[in-house]
């Protein structure tokens, strides 16, 4: 299992390097074009010739990659939105449980970017839970903390004054809040990718994912519900995705290494869960632009497996928040 994960991780790194090559090539083309433009008016012949041969060489290199499958900007693996878990929890008609969320005062001890970025993720998941349960005054406090963390991390997009005003106006409107907050996180994600700070984006995703997983695993103490058990088992692939997203930063700091190792350890426990899949022909409704996917997945998870996962998730979540 560990071997498989690390082979996949290596593939991720290779693909990212390939993407960088293409960026570098395009950057070179831009610079060459600019230099060509700046030297208009004299001695053009030799420049044009060398530029032509360089461009030809670059085209050949791009052509050699023409059929390659490339990855999507280092975020080729999707992580489910914390709102999806919050919606599932709410559907179970359970009472609001404040013990499931991370207290705001924990944030005062976060001094480095690693903890702050994780906090941006897990407080986001807490905000989703609070929103679902119409806990408006608490939700305002959590969003204010999220905004401060974003400022500390120098993330200007997604958490600006305009968004805060929209949040204020829509307090009490659950649907609008979900929409606004999700868009804030999407804009922040884009901002971090555009500014070559993907590692922060990866930590935010990790924080959100683990807080959601913590919530749903802890709820199994309150309710024995098959859908919740299945949903926990179905996090097997998203957890693999998260490890792959974090993997390029494995050696960036001891904290990254420790976090990734803990998640790989958790992935071992998920590996024992059996998932059976049966393909069924989808139904396409073109007039509604809708595809109904009828394939079926069955999750087989034992009480012992669940307990081990629950314990380990709690341990990792504590590592993140304290």
């Amino acid at each position, binding site marked *: 299992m560990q071997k498989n994960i690390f082979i996949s991780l290596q593939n991720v790194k290779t693909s990212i390097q390939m993407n960088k090559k293409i960026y570098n090539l395009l950057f070179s083309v831009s610079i060459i074009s600019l230099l060509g433009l700046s030297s208009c008016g004299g001695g053009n012949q030799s420049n044009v010739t060398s530029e032509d041969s360089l461009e030809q060489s670059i085209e050949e290199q791009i052509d050699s990659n023409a059929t390659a499958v490339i990855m999507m900007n280092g975020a080729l693996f999707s992580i489910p939105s914390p709102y999806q878990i919050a919606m599932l929890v709410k559907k179970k008609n359970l009472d609001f449980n404040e013990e499931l969320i991370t207290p705001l005062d924990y944030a005062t001890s976060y001094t480095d970017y690693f903890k702050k970025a994780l906090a941006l993720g897990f407080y986001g998941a807490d905000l989703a839970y609070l929103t679902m349960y119409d806990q408006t005054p608490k939700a305002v406090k959590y969003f204010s903390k999220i905004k401060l963390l974003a400022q500390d991390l120098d993330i200007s997009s997604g958490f600006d004054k305009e968004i805060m005003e929209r949040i204020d106006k829509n307090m009490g409107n659950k649907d609008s809040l979900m929409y606004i907050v999700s868009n804030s996180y999407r804009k922040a994600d884009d901002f971090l990718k555009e500014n070559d700070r993907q590692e922060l984006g990866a930590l935010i995703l990790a924080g959100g994912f683990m807080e959601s997983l913590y919530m749903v695993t802890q709820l199994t103490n309150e309710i024995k519900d098959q859908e919740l058990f299945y949903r926990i088992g179905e996090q097997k692939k998203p957890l693999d995705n998260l490890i792959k997203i974090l993997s390029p930063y494995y050696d960036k700091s001891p904290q990254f290494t420790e976090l990734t190792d803990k998640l790989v350890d958790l992935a071992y426990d998920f590996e024992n869960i059996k998932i059976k899949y049966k393909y069924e022909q989808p139904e396409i409704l073109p007039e509604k*632009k809708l595809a109904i996917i009828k394939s079926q997945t069955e999750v087989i998870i034992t009480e012992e497996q669940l307990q081990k996962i629950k314990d380990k998730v709690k341990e990792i979540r504590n590592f993140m928040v304290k």
Partner: protein
Amino acid sequence: MRNINITAIIIFLSALFTFNNANAQADQTISLVTKYMKYPFISDGQQYKALLNGDEIAEFHITFFGGTVYRLAAAAGNDEGNVVFRVYDKQRNLLFTNADYNNSPYWDFKFTSTVDCLIEIQLDNSNLSSGFVYMLVGFKQEGK
């Protein structure tokens, strides 16, 4: 010395122009894709982007949870219909491609059960030979 200064200014201005132009292009493409991610669809909080040339294919892995309606929206360049996407299950069965529907810029998916999927994204070379592809994934709020 004066010639060098003029050259440096021209390079700087050209780079600035190129940068602004690229940003304007990106904004235009993003607006093409975000317009399909409106209420009642909620973004998954991530923005996927890939630079594609020719026949290159970008792929990404995603788990769609059962009982949920999702929306995929994709765009490249200044116009709709430049992107082809294909959704496969983990056994590589093709579940859907927008190529069968005039490269529709978005499509909704209702999953009756949770399915791990692979999505391939490619430029339609008859419309666009290279550029950034943006893709968003959203899910529908329950009961909407």
